[in-house]
């Protein structure tokens, strides 16, 4: 299967505010710190991690909404980091984003028709108002929303969170993009609405042939819909592989911690047996030495403090970045 996206040693550093006037050396936040992976056509690639792990920044790097500090992004074998403005604009027709917040990702002053049709206008596809409306209606149908005049005239305030997210999906489909980065698309929705929108996205994948990068902090959701998963921690990928394999046989201690933390749906099942009440995601600017996870790792040994473990294939394309697992 062809590779649609390839990310090579991608890095993004943000300058941190100087904590004191006297510190000479500039401090940086290592939001994304050397990430490499590939996404194949037609697959749903999950990026899982807690807040601060860099997944949001990664999403924006992939779509070049933010310039990388170093590293490259290849879309269909083309280096997108070297494209000029108009070339990049043309490319955006093929790669789109679904945003997390249904309440701020739609312009409150526009009606649904204008919101969904905006990509058509930006790219000057069809000047004729009726063709624009038709295309918008097609997109709305794909996401199971009404196509009536009265619905097209509504404003975001009049829709529920789930409906707004569907509008966000319609907006992405209207240009016929086949590669979609979904940044926590359902985390702000209620449980049953979540399920509905997620099912919709998966259904569309089958129907139209989409490739997704699905970013989430919920590993259980990733298991349900992703083919492969990358687990991120403090800017790096710590585990990468087939979704089923990772869930059934998590290698990296952080992945195991994430799995432990998910409340099981059966009250009988034990929850969080190894989770200690102490220890949290550090607010570090400069990451810890050696393996970034070692301060929280119950299995850490001396080498974890000094040497950073590389991401290594342990067999069957299941990779982990750990000295021992």
């Amino acid at each position, binding site marked *: 299967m062809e590779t649609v996206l390839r990310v090579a040693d991608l890095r993004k550093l943000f300058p941190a505010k100087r904590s004191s006037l006297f510190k000479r050396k500039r401090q940086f936040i290592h939001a994304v710190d050397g990430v490499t992976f590939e996404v194949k056509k037609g697959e749903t690639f999950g990026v899982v991690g*807690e807040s601060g792990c860099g997944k949001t920044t990664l999403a924006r790097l992939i779509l070049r909404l933010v310039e990388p500090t170093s590293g490259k992004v290849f879309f269909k074998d083309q280096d997108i980091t070297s494209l000029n403005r108009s070339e990049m604009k043309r490319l955006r027709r093929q790669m789109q984003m679904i945003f997390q917040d249904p309440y701020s990702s739609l312009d409150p002053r526009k009606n649904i028709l204008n919101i969904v049709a905006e990509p058509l206008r930006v790219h000057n596809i069809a000047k004729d108002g009726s063709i624009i409306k038709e295309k918008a209606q097609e997109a709305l149908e794909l996401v199971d929303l009404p196509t009536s005049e009265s619905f097209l005239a509504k404003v975001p305030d009049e829709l529920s969170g789930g409906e707004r997210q569907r509008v966000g999906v319609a907006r992405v489909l209207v240009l016929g993009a086949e590669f979609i980065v979904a940044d926590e698309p359902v985390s702000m929705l*209620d*449980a*049953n609405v979540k*399920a509905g929108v997620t099912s919709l996205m998966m259904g569309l994948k089958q129907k139209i042939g989409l490739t997704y990068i699905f970013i989430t902090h919920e590993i259980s959701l990733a298991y349900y819909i992703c083919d492969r998963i990358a687990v991120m921690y403090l800017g790096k990928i710590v585990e990468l592989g087939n979704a089923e394999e990772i869930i059934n046989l998590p290698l990296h201690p952080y992945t195991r911690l994430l799995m432990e933390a998910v409340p099981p*749906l*059966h009250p009988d099942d034990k929850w969080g047996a190894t989770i200690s*009440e102490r220890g949290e*995601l550090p607010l570090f600017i400069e990451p810890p030495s050696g393996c970034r996870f070692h301060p929280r790792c119950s299995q850490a040994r001396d080498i974890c403090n000094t040497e950073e473990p590389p991401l290594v294939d342990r067999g069957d394309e299941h990779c982990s970045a750990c000295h021992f697992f």
Partner: protein
Amino acid sequence: MSLLTVENLRTYYFTEKGSVKAVDGVSFSVDKGESLGIAGESGCGKSTVALSIMRLIKGGKVVQGNITLDGTPLLNMPIRDFRRIRWERISLVSQAAMGGLNPVYRIGDQIVEAITTHTKSKKREAWDRAEELLRQVEVDPSRARNYPHELSGGMRQRAMIAMALALNPELVIADEPTTALDVVTQAQVLKIMRGLQRERNVCMLLISHDLSILGQTCDRIIIMYAGKIVEMGDVQALFREPQHPYTKALLNSFPDIKSESRTLTGLPGRPPDLIDPPSGCRFHPRCPQVQDICKAKEPTMIEVVPKHYVACYQVQGAS
């Protein structure tokens, strides 16, 4: 032994477009030392129940109902007396009152304020107590000198729990206490809450849209929909054999790592308009098993199995 009883509570909000029947006939009780969960979608009224108990409703009022704490009726009590109940006997940990933490005061000061407004403690004493409370929620007591923005989300949440426990209340109401937290932090915070609750034998009313966490931290659960209770029972029984179609649909919306199948079914449609709710059973427009009687008459709560109550004709075998 009931500590808190809520009888036929009706709380409406008054808007220009009409009255929103946010809570419309809710009855339940919480036993001493018990942890009761209230689950439902946003807008189902669960937060309104909490605010009604605490008499913090704005833009509306409790139009009917009785709430008693250990036999003492709360709703008609003069507000001056009720203020002593608030925080001393019932306290609230709320996400929405994330203004529960004032950004311009240190954590320690805020806990101290809670203590000194209600008791005659001196500041020094109160500060010591604040540090002790932080220790109990697994936060380093020296952090009492920090401001809220200097703490992580999980620590802030734990500080709010410490504040809620400051006066040794008999009942703690927690409204979506972990919604904004990461999954690992959430697990930690809930572990602490459950631990403290058991240790001090405090009643806990835990409100959340996330059934999975309720399943792990509560003894009993209430499922609410559109201002009414649709199912109520022991956590084990409800999860193993949910009765109400809504409960079943809700459970199916949660991804379960342990299950074999990898499909998620949602519930189509959206929650009803509470100004003009549907006739009969409020769930009928979305119910996959709707019958004629459901549209006509509202079902009453019936004990189908000991201590397991459901409001649904389907379950009660009505024709």
